[in-house]
């Protein structure tokens, strides 16, 4: 498929699909360039690992709503 054919087919995609396509292309380019870990860069970790009390509270909230 040529570039022109790809471009002409884009209007058929939804807004969400176009964003996904954009993300896919950016990802592919980044992977091709193969940049590794950078010295001194910040890599955030947001994961609330081990919040089992919170997990249990949320489950109870779901069960309570389902029971209504």
């Amino acid at each position: 498929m040529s570039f022109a054919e790809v471009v002409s087919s884009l209007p058929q995609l939804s807004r969400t699909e176009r964003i996904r396509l954009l993300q896919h292309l950016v990802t592919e380019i980044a992977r091709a360039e193969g940049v590794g870990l950078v010295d001194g860069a910040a890599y955030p970790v947001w994961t609330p690992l081990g919040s089992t009390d919170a997990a249990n509270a949320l489950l109870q909230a779901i069960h309570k709503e389902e029971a209504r």
Partner: protein
Amino acid sequence: MAQPEQFPYMLTDPALGEASLLPFMPITLESGGRRLELNALVDSGSAVNVLPHNVGLQLGAAWEQQTIAVRLTGNLANEPARALLVSATVGLFAPVRLAFAWTRSDAVPVILGQVNFFMEYDVHFYRSRGIFEVEPKTGRKV
């Protein structure tokens, strides 16, 4: 049976290239007639779903009206959080109810964790290919 929806990993920092790829996924959240489309981090290491404070406000939630307090760990440990149930839609799948730990912090993305995102969806990560797939749990209608 529903076909899995496939998503690319998202580049979160162009300067870091492939090292910054994370499984962010578009999702639609709805509550009280309000609807938000946003990207959420699919995080199998997180015990819970997490909603930043501003996103809850945009969905029309009132902090004082949420009566179930939840305690988070990690870098969210110092912020109070409360349970908030919202409707969520992934791709073309039917909406599900997701329970979020709604934190007072905005320094966090929307996180989809074990309770209860991973209880509703099966997720397959293919990090080496830069993609991941999501499908409704077996037995749930699409």
